[in-house]
């Protein structure tokens, strides 16, 4: 069985985390929540066609991002990783540019929201095809190992539904056989759009799958950023020091529908959501930091105001940008000027 660490055991065990880091984690969670809301608001206002929410994943992502080493590690995210994108250094303006599909979006307005790319920050470009990106994450880890770049690791994320995919299995197996520096973080929110976990697998813990690959599997409370940080830190440190891959399962919940196009009333009860909302990681972590004396209530309020202002500024700045030109549709099919029919003089 995979090792389980409960929230209660760990939520006050800050370990090596400084006050600044704890505050940075809270700020990440507040910003994530604010940007999530903004995406849904803009959609309901008719300003953007689509948004995906990460609400309920703030704790996992703030914790995992804190264990990520900028400039060294590479993040291969999935489409519900707003907090990780922010946590590894992407800006709200980039997020809003993507939501508005403006020319300032790194994909040039091509990609769906939440499908980030930022080579400079080590965020790999992904498609929407579930678990296809896990193989790429393994390839990046293989490149680190091949070049002898010790101290670098790959953080590859998915939901629990992705672990049903053959390519997830192939990826974990390949990484295990080759002992590659990678951590497969499974953000288990219990739902793959409308399909609950027990329709994806017969086991209660995704992390138990690790045994089948001969690698460690760990479970943490994804509502607890500190617990997630420690679990991820251990896994990433192991990977960075040649100890090979592992699976971390962070148990969390998806508070919102899958996307602005989904209606979760068709498949899950309001009561279930309300029960989970009582555990909402964002106000809870704020309260934990206040009770621990890391911040006071005024500082917490200031942080909330700060992320709202930042979100508003980024919204205005992104909305003011132009759409990509129609001609840009033809750019970057391949290098240079591409024609399927070649003409020679």
């Amino acid at each position, binding site marked *: 069985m995979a090792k389980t660490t409960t929230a209660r055991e760990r939520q006050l065990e800050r370990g090596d985390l400084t006050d600044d880091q704890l505050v940075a984690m809270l700020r990440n969670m507040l910003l994530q929540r604010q940007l999530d809301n903004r995406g849904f608001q803009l959609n309901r206002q008719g300003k953007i066609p689509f948004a995906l929410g990460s609400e309920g994943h703030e704790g996992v992502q703030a914790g995992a991002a804190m264990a990520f080493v900028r400039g060294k590690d*590479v993040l*291969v995210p999935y489409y519900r990783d707003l907090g990780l994108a922010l946590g590894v250094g992407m800006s709200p303006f980039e997020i809003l540019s993507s939501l508005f599909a403006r020319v300032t979006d*790194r*994909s*040039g307005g*091509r*990609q769906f929201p939440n*499908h980030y*790319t*930022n*080579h400079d920050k080590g965020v*790999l*470009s992904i*498609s929407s*095809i579930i678990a*296809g*990106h*896990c*193989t*790429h*994450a*393994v*390839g*990046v*880890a*293989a*490149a*680190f*190992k*091949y070049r002898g770049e010790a101290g670098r690791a790959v953080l590859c994320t998915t939901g629990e539904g992705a672990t049903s995919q*053959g*390519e997830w299995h*192939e*990826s974990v*197996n*390949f990484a295990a*056989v*080759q002992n590659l520096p990678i951590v497969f973080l499974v953000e288990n929110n219990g739902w793959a759009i409308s399909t609950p976990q027990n329709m994806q697998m017969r086991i209660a813990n995704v992390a138990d799958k690790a045994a089948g690959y001969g690698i460690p599997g760990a479970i943490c409370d994804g509502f607890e950023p500190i617990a997630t940080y420690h679990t991820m830190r251990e896994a990433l440190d192991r990977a960075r020091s040649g100890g090979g891959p592992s699976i971390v399962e962070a148990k969390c919940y998806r508070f919102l529908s899958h996307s602005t196009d989904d209606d979760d009333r068709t498949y899950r009860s309001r009561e279930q959501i309300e029960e989970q909302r009582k555990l909402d990681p964002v106000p809870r972590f704020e309260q934990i930091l206040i009770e621990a004396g890391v911040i006071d209530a005024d500082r917490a309020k200031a942080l909330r105001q700060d992320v709202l202002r930042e979100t508003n500024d980024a919204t205005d700045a992104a909305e003011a940008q132009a759409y990509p030109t129609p001609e840009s549709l033809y*750019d*970057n*099919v*391949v*290098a240079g000027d*591409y*024609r*399927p*029919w*070649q*003409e*020679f*003089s």
Partner: protein
Amino acid sequence: MATTAAAGPQTATGTSVMTNVEAVRSTLHAALVRDDRVLILGEDVGARGNVFLITKGFLDEFGPQRIVDTPLAEASIVGVAIGMAMEGLRPIAEIQFADFIYPAFNQIVGEAAKTRYRSNGDYTCPLVIRTPYGGGVRGALSHSVSIEALFYHVPGLTILAPSTPADVKGLLNAAIESPDPVLFLEHKKTYRSVKGEVPSGYYTIPIGKADVKKAGTDVSVVSYGYNLHQALDAANRLEGEGVSVEVIDLRSIRPMDKTTILESVRKTRKLLIIHEDNKFGGIGAEISAMVAEEALFDLDAPIRRLCGPDVPAMGYALSLEDEFMTSTDDMVEAMRELAKF
């Protein structure tokens, strides 16, 4: 272990005579020596040296970090290679037989071909996927197929199918140099049956450029792969009858060479397209459409296509394989009829 990859005697003119399979092997070997970003991954490429012995000895010479025996899982062979390519390496992924590429279809079509596009150039995917294809070797339903038409619909992919050792070398080098993903098709029946002179030293052949393998004036034939060699035999036979056939080796399937095809068709005013892949929706359909759009009134005869029949695959029985494969006699007949038209 010292490996001498280039086989065959060195001639005075700075060329070696080698088979297609030797050309693949020696070109891969030189790439591994030349560029430490290059590595090979696939099923049985290590100790076994690939099922056609293309990488024999490479494991000993370059080590398991560069000659990677992968788990038996095609999607991740390509997918892991994509990740390596995005991270700056120059991986050469091998799919043991083209028939086994279907599990990797998503990785090739959904991922590799779109990496540059979806990131607007933030990431690129300089990846080569090599795979042996084609029939005539008693490969039955799952060791004989042609796959090019399944992939040539996909922008972002380059598809190469050279037929001679010199072209194999030049185009494989071009594929490895390419900053974008290349599907490199090697016809199994030409591996050891086709021999030719290969220039020494490093060179590339431009991607997207066809080659007139035999000049002629009465009929233009466009082909590639094993069929190309049959077409050359057929054309040579017809010389005795006074029929002059021009044979164009397409070499590159995506992109394709419009200029060479149109120049030839405008000269001969007759076009025959020959490929082993199914006729319906095949490469020949696109060539036909292009010629119809660009040069319909230069034609003196309807375009003809000799292709694989519209069945799922060739059977194991020799009778079934023979029925599937276009014979050289059929090519002679089609060329003769077209010349007379």
